[in-house]
């Protein structure tokens, strides 16, 4: 089973490298990439300085495998890559990288959007929003 988790933030160098690797796949005409970035939200005068992510990894990887198969079944994709941070990701850093590639744009775009929803709704991952005064609250995922 493919591991989607990386320790800490996702670097832009890693993203560039991932894109570059697809240059040899010349049946690809379209890539779509979604990136999640930690927001410095303000809650009652406290500012979110980081999110700490934890997961039930065994269940998450199994669920991700099911999602992967369902997406490949539904869309004419050439490939799909998902990376999610664990541990601390500071405000302004990247915590999620979803990457779909296909011969034509419709499949890449639709698959990427659907993957993002499935990852947010179905993967057992939890975010703890840590404030600048070291208090925290647990992140709640909402639509959009």
């Amino acid at each position, binding site marked *: 089973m493919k591991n989607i988790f990386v320790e800490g933030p996702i670097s832009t160098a890693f993203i560039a490298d991932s894109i570059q690797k697809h240059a040899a796949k010349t049946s690809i005409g379209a890539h779509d990439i979604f990136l999640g970035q930690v927001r410095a939200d303000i809650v009652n005068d406290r500012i979110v300085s980081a999110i700490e992510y934890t*997961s039930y990894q065994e*269940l998450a990887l199994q669920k991700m495998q099911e999602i992967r198969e369902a997406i490949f079944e539904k869309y004419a994709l050439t490939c799909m890559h998902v990376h999610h941070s664990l541990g601390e990701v500071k405000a302004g850093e990247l915590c*999620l990288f979803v990457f779909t590639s296909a011969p034509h744009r419709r499949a890449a775009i639709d698959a990427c959007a659907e993957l993002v929803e499935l990852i*947010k709704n179905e993967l057992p*991952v*939890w975010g703890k929003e840590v404030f600048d005064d070291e208090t925290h609250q647990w992140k709640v995922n909402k639509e959009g």
Partner: protein
Amino acid sequence: MAIQVLFFGQLTEIAGNAVGVDVAATGTLRGLEQELWTQFPLLKDRKYALSVNQKIIKEDISLADGDVIAFLPPFSGG
């Protein structure tokens, strides 16, 4: 029989990360849940799903020795 129980997300603040529970040989998932409500009263009012051996289980089922149960609060990845 020995059951391992895992807690995630905000539930770790109520119950820690994991506990081992010894339940009767005829134990069921909902019976175990009730036992844990007694042990960790704040758990009862929280929203969560339960998994048994990495499968989300919505109904009640019988437990077997060595099963791994997890309390999963609403997901908030991404």
